[in-house]
């Protein structure tokens, strides 16, 4: 009985969380629709896709070896960046990007996206690989398969977990702002565009775009949840 009541409390909390994030936005007087939200949206989606595809092989390799504890020590090295503000990551990258002359370019955005999404993608892939059997390795190694072939079969064995990790990486790329504020204000991405809308016209100018992004985020998060449920990954 108590657990039934608790369930309603938890559901109410989830609904409350969603309402807090969405309803107050409509209370602003004089909401205006952003002039061109397609360009930053399209840019961010395209760069996120490129960064995810470029970062995925590295994430797969790192996760595979880390999940076998052969190089478990690299995990803190990879994940420390999640513990610091991403503006700091931008500042750390700035001298390098300046040296290569890519500040405020698409490559700067993509590289920054790879750097911020790699820890979360690797972490998620480690969980996905951990769900596949160690015995699969033990069976395949004496058969003469090399590590890349073994990784290929692990990816097939945990395909839903891998897909969930890819979506997670993509979402992390899509939502990045801090690093872009330092290394790439242009081409325009959604985070920077939102920041500029707010700076120029206040909340009324930026809230509708925030809601569009919230709906987009909710859509992708739902897809991620469904895939994760099927894959048994949390």
């Amino acid at each position, binding site marked *: 009985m108590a657990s039934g009541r608790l369930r309603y409390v938890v559901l109410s909390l989830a609904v409350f969380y969603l309402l807090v994030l969405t309803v107050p936005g409509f209370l602003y007087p004089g909401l205006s629709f952003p002039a061109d939200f397609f360009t930053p949206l399209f840019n961010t989606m395209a760069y996120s896709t490129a960064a995810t595809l470029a970062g995925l092989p590295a994430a797969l390799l790192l996760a595979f070896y880390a999940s076998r504890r052969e190089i478990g020590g690299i995990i803190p090295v990879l994940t420390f960046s999640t513990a610091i503000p991403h503006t700091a990551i931008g500042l750390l990258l700035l001298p390098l990007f300046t040296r290569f002359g890519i500040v405020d370019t698409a490559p700067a955005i993509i590289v920054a996206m790879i750097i911020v999404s790699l820890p979360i993608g690797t972490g998620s892939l480690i969980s996905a690989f951990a769900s596949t*059997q*160690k*015995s*699969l390795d*033990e*069976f395949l*190694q*004496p*058969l*003469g*398969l*090399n590590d890349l072939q073994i990784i290929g*079969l692990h990816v*097939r*064995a945990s*395909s839903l977990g891998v897909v969930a990790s890819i979506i997670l990486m993509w979402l992390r790329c899509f939502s990045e702002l801090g690093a872009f504020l330092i290394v790439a204000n242009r081409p325009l991405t959604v985070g920077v565009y939102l920041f500029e809308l707010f700076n120029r016209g206040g909340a009324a100018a930026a809230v509708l775009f925030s809601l569009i992004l919230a709906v987009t985020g909710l859509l992708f998060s739902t897809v991620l949840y469904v895939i994760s449920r099927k894959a048994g990954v949390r």
Partner: protein
Amino acid sequence: MKMFEALDVEVMRKNFRISVDYLKADGKVVLLGRNGTGKSTLLKCFAGLLKPVRGRLRLDGKDITGLHPREREIGYLPQEPVRIPLSPAKLLRYFAARFGVDDREVVRMFGLEEIVAKTALSQGENQIVNLAVVMMKRPRLLLLDEPTSGMDFVNKIFYWRLLKKLSTPMVYVTHDPVEASMIADHIYLVGGGHVKGPYENPLKDKVEEFLNEYNLYRFFENSRS
């Protein structure tokens, strides 16, 4: 002559040690012992998945102690059932292409006609397919870690009969004396951190004769439908 030898081998895993003074497998050798006595640890060492603390491993006279599992020319079936995410037909084709053998020949040799037509396999059927995959490599030594655990009796007998047909030397781990009697030419007893043996299998062929005498395989097979 095809032969595997373990000479004065000691393996350590966590705080557990298992040692063997001398083990020779030129036929079907069974490591028999209770759960947790170190049989699997020893087999992993033979497969190259664990390094021995001391001792040498020789396969057909060649020292394989320091070799990676890939280079050992062995086939290994771990205790935990391995599920490769391919249908049985695709799986056999994948490895047949890799090892340059005809998958249809393998299907015929192992009697897998029914199994390859399926998309989902029982644990026992899966183990049978995995054995076929391992044998495609034509290993010089077969290492099998309780491969029939979780199988029903019909699949067990089918599996044991397959093994009896193979001429490849094998080290077979089990805790079941009946299974040991069915398979082994020689039995090594594992317990107290040591391996004792070899002992002649006094029941060699007797279990098979018993099964045939009462037509038990047919009985169990028919009782499924």
